[in-house]
């Protein structure tokens, strides 16, 4: 069985990493360069940078952050937030990103997924979906960090995105995000059953056992963690050790 990926998620606002609850209520937790380097040295498998204000250009833009990181950090880097055009992707890749996460632009114009995957390959295109539970087994896709509703059904949307060429799905549970109450296994499982591409689960991981439970139930291929590492609840090796103890295959 292939190892599951443990991914650090850094939500960026200007020069800082921030963290919110339910994607709101923001607090500064550190500098992106320092946090990313610390996680890399501890053995993180990947890093995702999410621009919370979609400020792709200008001073202190997320691309400067990524460019700085790419000098010393040799694991895959994904950039999301504000990616709207093929040119934005070119710029992100030139700054050292390996993949881009697309949400709003794909919702607004689904053909963007086709264009992006044709130009850069599916492996480069991560569809980011913010899911809000509306009824048992029913989720609505939100955009703009959970600020905007779309009326789109998450399960239909991810199936369409896969057809259009998305290479991975990053599924964020808006209901669990920042709560440390555990992964939204119902949501993650439903997503993973609907598509055949890798699924990255995001939101709710407050302790290593939360990840163990999600992996044991085959709900996801990879998981993102934020608060648990940002606040030093545990280090990356401590986190991975618990997974290994429970026979979850990981990279050590």
């Amino acid at each position, binding site marked *: 069985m292939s*190892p599951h990926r443990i991914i650090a998620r850094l939500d960026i606002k200007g020069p800082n990493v921030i963290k919110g609850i339910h994607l709101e209520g923001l607090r500064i937790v550190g500098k992106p360069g320092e946090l990313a380097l610390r996680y890399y040295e501890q053995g993180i498998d990947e890093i995702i940078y999410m621009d919370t204000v979609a400020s792709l250009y200008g001073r202190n833009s997320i691309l400067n952050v990524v460019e700085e990181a790419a000098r010393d950090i040799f694991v*895959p880097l994904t950039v999301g937030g504000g990616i709207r055009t093929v040119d934005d992707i070119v710029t992100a890749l030139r700054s050292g990103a390996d993949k881009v996460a697309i949400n709003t632009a794909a919702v607004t114009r689904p053909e963007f997924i086709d264009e992006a995957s044709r130009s*850069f390959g*599916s492996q480069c295109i991560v569809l980011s979906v913010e899911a809000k539970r509306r009824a048992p087994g029913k989720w609505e896709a939100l955009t703009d960090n959970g600020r905007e509703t779309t009326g789109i059904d998450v399960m239909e949307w991810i199936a369409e995105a896969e057809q259009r060429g998305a290479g991975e799905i990053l599924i964020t549970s808006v209901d669990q995000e920042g709560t440390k109450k555990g992964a939204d296994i119902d949501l993650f499982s439903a997503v993973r059953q609907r598509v*055949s591409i890798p699924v990255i689960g995001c939101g709710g991981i407050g302790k290593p056992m939360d990840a163990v439970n999600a992996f044991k139930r085959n709900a996801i291929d990879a998981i993102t963690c934020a608060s648990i590492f940002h606040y030093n609840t545990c280090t990356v090796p401590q986190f991975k050790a618990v997974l290994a103890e429970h026979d979850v295959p990981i990279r050590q």
Partner: protein
Amino acid sequence: MIHVIDYGRGNLFSIGQALRHLGVPFKLTSDAGQIRESSRLLLPGVGAFGDAMAGLTERGLADAVRDAAHRDIPLLGICVGAQMLLSRSEEFGLHKGLDLINGTVRRLPEPYDGATGQTRIPNVGWRAIESKQDDPVLGTVPANSMAYFVHSLAPMADDQNHIVATITINGEKIPAAIRKGNILGYQFHPEKSGPTGLDLLQRFVEMKV
């Protein structure tokens, strides 16, 4: 001096950063003359095979790479760059490769039990590479070393002797590294594989022919 071939495709930035980190002098080039005279060549590549080969051919660089390889210049292909070393690829129809190593780029085996516990395609993530013990370049890579992969196809060399490292995907052994003399291909991304990846890149830098 390593010449990194710039043909409009490939994550040149990351590869450059990794070489810089190793302290290896390098230069990007799109010049056929420079490629022919180079002492060590690196061929990166991301995206689709046909598109990448077109990028190389349009710039008149495919023949230059072939000439250098035939003159025993050490050449490393990474990801799609490694696939391009082969005769052909089955990605989106049939495409001709550089034909430096006999073989075909084929799709990875799909999970046979779609539901649980198996590797989804594209194969994304860290996989343990098993290297051929007697290979002078990769033989000493420690067991269980993991490298980062992101691909749906792999370079299936015809001659088993050219497969110098493998990973296991959905029950099958898949080439992770191929080598024929001075010509080396890494399906994984050494520039994205942490300290293990930097070591694997260093092995190419030191590779003797």
